[in-house]
């Protein structure tokens, strides 16, 4: 098992274009599956290609297990790649495809049989090992490709959009399978994807990139609960986090949300944490499933502060788009489905203080985030 470290890595393709990757410092720990995630042009693919040795570094160094590799060609780095279109040998059987990397390296027959047998067992493909790979579904072909990558115990496996050619149910199935196989073998892996669902499902940690700059690297749970900035808050989670203005009250533990006509109290401990930092103004962040939606009316008792403008059922959850009465901005709530609210219903929205994130309005930085 090998840790992979990017040290101050930059990549520039030409003098006229901005840096594709800017001063990247990132550690993929031993045995970890690290996902690189971001919108197109964020630098994730360039980063993967530099790790693979398919692109040169403009600056910096990449270390495999502490050894610099930037001078080594792709073939000498002991890595394996899994591509979106499988890249299997169509005229070979499942078994021969998996055995191929061992055959070309001259591994002796007994050891080859042993190692291929282990991988076939792990994939559950023993009974059909003699079949041509072209007889298999896309999902099963990709499992063979993963088996071929794992059979020679590389230092690192690079997964490049491994699920993007697959249909819905095969994708859901293989997502779980990749995560299981990677854990079982414990091979250090880097996954590139544009799909946050895939990244969160498979990865131990995720590095979020934007415009060549690393934004945050963390576990899926931490990214979701404590995004480093409003870009990550908006990028991770579906529907995205609600972001809305707040005003710090006289008593600094109290925050007023003018558009809802609500005050929340965040408590002394959190007040001290963010009061110590300079900030231009406060933006609150709240996940849609944490927004509390109550039936309400025109009267003084539980007076409505929003109206449901759209309901989107999604089976076990419904999302509601809500128009705030005071300023016609919108918020999104997610409730267990099927819920009883309908378009046109007047509601009272409440914000639970404990689930809020506090961002600087100008920079978007999370005021309670410690790197």
């Amino acid at each position, binding site marked *: 098992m090998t840790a992979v470290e990017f040290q101050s890595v930059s990549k520039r393709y030409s003098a006229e274009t901005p840096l594709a990757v800017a001063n990247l410092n990132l550690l993929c720990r031993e045995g970890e599956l690290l996902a690189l995630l971001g919108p197109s042009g964020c630098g994730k693919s360039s980063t993967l290609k530099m790790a693979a040795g398919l692109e040169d570094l403009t600056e910096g160094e990449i270390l495999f297990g502490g050894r610099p590799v930037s001078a080594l060609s792709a073939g000498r780095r002991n890595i394996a790649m899994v591509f979106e279109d499988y890249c299997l040998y169509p005229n070979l059987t499942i078994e021969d495809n998996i055995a191929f990397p061992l055959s070309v390296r001259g591994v002796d027959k007994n050891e080859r049989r042993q190692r291929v047998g282990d991988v076939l067992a792990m994939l559950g493909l023993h009974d059909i090992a003699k079949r041509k790979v072209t007889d298999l579904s896309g999902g099963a072909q990709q499992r063979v490709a993963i088996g071929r990558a794992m059979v020679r115990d590389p230092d690192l496996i690079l997964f490049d959009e491994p699920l993007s050619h697959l249909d819905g149910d095969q994708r859901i199935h293989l997502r779980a399978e990749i995560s*299981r196989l990677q854990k079982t073998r414990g091979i250090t892996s880097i996954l590139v994807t544009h799909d946050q669902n895939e990244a969160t499902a*498979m990865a131990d940690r995720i590095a979020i990139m934007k415009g060549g700059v690393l934004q945050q690297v963390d576990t899926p749970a931490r990214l979701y609960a404590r995004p480093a900035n409003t870009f990550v808050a908006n990028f991770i989670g579906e529907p995205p986090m609600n972001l809305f203005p707040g005003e710090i009250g006289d008593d600094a533990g109290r925050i007023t949300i003018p558009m809802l006509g609500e005050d929340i109290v965040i408590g002394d401990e959190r007040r001290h944490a963010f009061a110590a930092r300079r900030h231009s103004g406060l933006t609150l962040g709240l996940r849609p499933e944490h927004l509390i939606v109550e039936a309400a009316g025109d009267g003084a008792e539980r007076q409505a502060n929003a109206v449901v403008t759209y309901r989107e059922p999604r089976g*076990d959850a419904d999302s509601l788009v809500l128009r705030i009465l005071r300023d016609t901005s919108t918020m999104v709530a997610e409730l267990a489905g099927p819920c009883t609210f309908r378009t046109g219903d007047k509601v009272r929205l409440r914000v639970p203080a404990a689930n809020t994130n506090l961002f600087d309005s100008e920079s978007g930085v999370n005021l309670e985030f410690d790197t």
Partner: protein
Amino acid sequence: MTAPLKSCKTAADGLQLLNVSKTFDQTEVLHDIDLTVAPGEVLALVGPSGAGKTTLCRIIAGLETPSSGQCYMNGTDMTAMPPGDRRVAMMFESYALYPHLSVGDNVRSPLLARAKGGLPPTAGQHIEQLLAVLEIAHLSDRLPSELSGGQKQRTALARALIQNPNALLLDEPISHLDAKLRHKLRGEIRQILNARPHPTIWSTPDGLEGLSVGDRIAVLIAGRIEQIGTPEDIWLRPASVKVARLFGDPPMNILPGELQDGQGRIDFHCRSMTMTLPPALAASAKAIKGRAAFLGLRPNGLTLHRGDDQSAIATTVYSIESFGKYAIVTLITPPGDLIKLKTADVQDLKLGDDVGVRYASDQLLLFDGTTGRAAYVYS
């Protein structure tokens, strides 16, 4: 060839298909389709690839002739009407953009084709607004060859949405967009359609997209309508195992087994467990003729338990996928059935841990093991 009508009653308004079948080279791709879409309604047509969704849309547009059956528009039989006279707008999954026209001109083209003496003064503004909603306003002057797949798809979508047709057919309109944009646009397109008077068919292989956008959903599998209903109907009461497998992320767990009569009770027995059916399910089990049955377990109706628990299904943790908001845990039973469970909290769960699975009895469904049809007792 004309098939006899099942009934002569046709809907006065909207779109209606009666007994529509289509055969290509002796292969039946659509079988006896009956469907109505009311004015202003969005019908989501959900089915896996190859189910016949595109063929159905092409028949409504007049690009294919049904082998038997009729299509009606507002009560008028249009089965033999040429496509140009139907005023049906169709967005093709293959986009079919004019390669020599810019994005803006592609979107403008259907309006020009119908306008006599120039476009109305508001047309330009409508096009701009629509391109802005679809996030392609900045690409208005580009040619299709300069666009990504997703941008082409949104151009084709804008060209369909700009029209004021008798019926609108959207064939997998957002399938090639990345997930983030897909989630955002499906709601926005749906809200544009809310203000429209015409019937719309929105086809998709994605069950959750169908639940999100359809007033009703028609599930098409292998050329046959398996079920038509509201999103709640389809989600809570899927008509068959095939329907249940199309909806949910992850979809419902389906275990094949058999029914066994005990003393004053009915048991469901399969290789991974034996369960005494709760009263409501035992009542519906009477609708099953043979002994073979499928038990459906919803991933969000299952809970994990550690330690010895006789009432739980014995399993081992096979994989864990955590999504922040929730996690999906895949469990494997000793005989090798995989069961997926959706939970808010996985805590210190590890691969290989032995755990018990309990089920909420109101989250179970029973299906006939021979036909695959649901066994429900409607009260």
